[in-house]
């Protein structure tokens, strides 16, 4: 087995020896080096994957608690109510402060500890080097560092539940002045964010250098699979959009710990007392800095998902992706535009008309690339021989679900319609459609799809379909009624779900239905969890390309040894990524490395 690959220019890095010696294939690396502090992108990808899935489950559980409260306000939490302290839920009845913690941390954990680490840290790390024919990421040690920094950030976030008065309560958005005067948990949230942002930045540098520099011979940019393209754009977004939030985090920490007034206006009165601060700050400054990141962040959430869905659709339609080049240009354009739309989250802050016009225009424009991508994927289905495998079911469902999420975003992107809808359940419905039956479905699809690559076995298809149908129906049950509640004017982040407002009378009854759907959704994750673990040992064994796919990751040795080195033979690339059903070819797929 070849130990390394010759770079094109013919020179090898001299004296990598000391770095490689511990994974020299005659010496077994220690357990710690092999599984805990590994620099192998596949191990790191799995570390990110397991950690992220645990956080997703935890973040989901927080929401399950919230949904109980929303359906049955003031009722003690059943079965596990006794677990909660008097500070959080005395007698099992949730306190508003605890509800707020759950809300803020649900959002934070799902976005920053669940979806992004899974979509980028796990899938990106594991698959991208394989898809471009590289032996590893460009900076393996940096890769390892970025995982552990992420892990520390996650621990800080979890630990924040244990401090007096509990975790952050000012939303995942941490708006001042509230966030400035909140309890210790908010400070821990800020420190946690600093670690998570740093981890993302290190990862972003690694992805960009890897994709630009380590593509195999013949792998031109336009022969790269769409999944790798989405990771490239995502990495650029993370690199350039996160630092202003890091800056904002520093400023808010300074406000909380050093009593500065970056975000505190003059003359602020709290509980009847004028605050003894210098004033002169602006709460809006936080919002601008926060959303400067947080808008590109939502594209970080969706782009890898689009990438995964594209891979699976091409593979399971046995067709090239319709308009691949157009899709690539679209996501590049999307990435650029994502930096100049952020204030559509701020239409109700007293914004003047000229600025709001600017942001409405850019926001309308940015809807176009998403439509192009979705259209391309739909058009690929036309005339296709569709294989309804489990990953394909999730990928197919992604299309209309993301479509619905995107469409419901349009009234939010226009100021006149946003004004009554801002901060209502409508917004929550909109973004959950995009993230839950959108991104998370794509991530499930990716797990079912790439599981044989990692383990050499397929997951059980029946359990997969049960997981799919149950989740699909339940998710719609949770999120669709939110649009009605939002249109009626029910605000988000309300501890009683809107029960104390007369105007909500007609839509409050949905809460119980939505919560039951949430409990059902939880139940339908059980077949997935069972399937995931059971198939490691009991799944149907398959060869290295069970889906008969064209991209390079399917040519690497199945379940590669967890040491360095991905390819038995260094691949060369001769064709585009989705050459399915090429007229005159021997089979209905032509792998990229086939001359």
């Amino acid at each position, binding site marked *: 087995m070849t130990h390394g690959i010759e770079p094109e220019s013919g020179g090898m890095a001299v004296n990598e020896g000391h770095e490689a010696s511990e994974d020299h294939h005659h010496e077994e690396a220690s357990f710690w080096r092999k599984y805990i502090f590994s620099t192998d992108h596949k191990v790191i990808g799995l570390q990110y994957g397991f950690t992220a899935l645990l956080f997703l489950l935890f973040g989901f559980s927080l929401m399950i608690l919230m949904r109980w409260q929303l359906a049955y306000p003031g009722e003690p939490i059943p079965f596990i109510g006794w677990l909660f302290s008097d500070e959080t839920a005395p007698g099992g009845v949730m306190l508003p402060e605890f509800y707020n913690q759950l809300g803020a941390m649900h959002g934070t954990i799902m976005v920053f500890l669940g979806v992004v680490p899974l979509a980028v840290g796990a899938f990106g790390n594991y698959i991208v080097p394989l898809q471009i024919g590289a032996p590893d990421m460009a900076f393996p040690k940096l890769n390892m560092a970025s995982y552990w920094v992420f892990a520390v950030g996650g621990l800080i976030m979890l630990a924040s539940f244990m401090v007096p008065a509990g975790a952050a309560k000012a939303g995942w958005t941490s708006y001042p002045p509230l966030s400035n005067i909140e309890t210790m948990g908010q400070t821990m949230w800020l420190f946690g964010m600093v670690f998570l942002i740093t981890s993302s930045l290190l990862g972003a540098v690694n992805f960009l250098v890897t994709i*630009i520099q380590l593509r195999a011979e013949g792998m031109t940019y336009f022969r790269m699979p769409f999944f790798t393209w989405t990771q490239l754009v995502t990495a650029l977004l993370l690199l*350039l959009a996160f630092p*202003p939030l890091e800056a904002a985090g520093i400023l808010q920490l300074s406000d909380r710990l050093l009593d500065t007034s970056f975000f505190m206006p003059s003359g602020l009165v709290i509980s009847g007392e004028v605050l003894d601060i210098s004033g002169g700050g602006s709460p*809006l400054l936080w919002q*601008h800095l926060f959303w*400067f990141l947080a808008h590109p962040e939502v594209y970080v959430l969706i782009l890898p998902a689009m990438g995964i869905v594209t891979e699976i659709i091409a593979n399971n339609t046995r067709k090239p992706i319709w308009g691949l080049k157009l899709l690539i240009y679209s996501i590049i354009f999307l990435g650029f535009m994502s*930096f*100049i739309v952020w*204030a559509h989250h701020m239409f109700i802050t*007293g*914004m*003047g*008309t*000229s*600025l709001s016009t*600017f942001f409405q225009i850019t926001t309308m424009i940015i809807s176009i690339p998403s439509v192009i991508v979705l259209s391309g994927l739909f058009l690929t289905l036309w005339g296709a021989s569709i294989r309804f495998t489990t990953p394909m079911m999730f990928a197919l469902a992604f299309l209309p679900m993301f479509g619905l999420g995107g469409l419901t975003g349009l009234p939010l992107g226009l100021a006149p319609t946003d004004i009554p809808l801002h901060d209502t359940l409508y917004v929550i419905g909109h973004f959950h459609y995009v993230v839950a039956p959108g991104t998370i479905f794509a991530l499930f699809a990716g797990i079912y799809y790439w599981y044989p690559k990692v383990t050499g076995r397929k997951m059980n298809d029946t359990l997969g379909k049960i997981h799919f149908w149950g989740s699909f129906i339940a998710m719609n049950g949770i999120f669709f009624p939110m649009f009605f509640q939002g249109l009626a004017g029910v605000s988000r982040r309300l501890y009683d779900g809107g029960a104390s407002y007369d105007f909500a009378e007609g839509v409050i009854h949905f809460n119980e239905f939505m919560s039951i759907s949430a409990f059902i959704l939880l139940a339908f994750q059980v077949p997935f969890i069972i399937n995931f673990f059971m198939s490691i040992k009991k799944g149907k064994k398959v060869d290295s390309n069970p889906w008969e796919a064209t991209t390079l990751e399917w040519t690497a040795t199945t379940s590669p040894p967890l040491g360095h080195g991905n390819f038995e033979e260094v691949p060369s690339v001769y064709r585009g990524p989705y050459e399915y059903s090429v007229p005159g070819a021997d089979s209905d797929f032509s792998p990229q490395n086939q001359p």
Partner: protein
Amino acid sequence: MSESHSHEDVQKHIKTYLMVFASLAVLTIVTVAVGYIHLPIWPALIAALVIASIKGGLVGAHFMHLLSEKKMIYHLLILTFVFLFFMFLLFIWAYNDQQGVHSLLIFI
């Protein structure tokens, strides 16, 4: 730049480095002098930014070898500065365009 440089190449570069250092020193003095004149805000801002950009540009072009650097690096930097520009522009615009605020326009 892992290609080997001939000694003459590097000697020429060293001359450039010293000239750049001298220019930077002079420009720093100019910066402080202009600062002490206490110009009104707009001319002061433009002067400060122009001088600082020249200084920064000299460091970037010569010390950081940007003059001979590859396109990709340039494009990355241009992209970054475009986003930075939008951030500055929109923050200022956001402040000035608020409803009901008669612009406390110290800039115009």
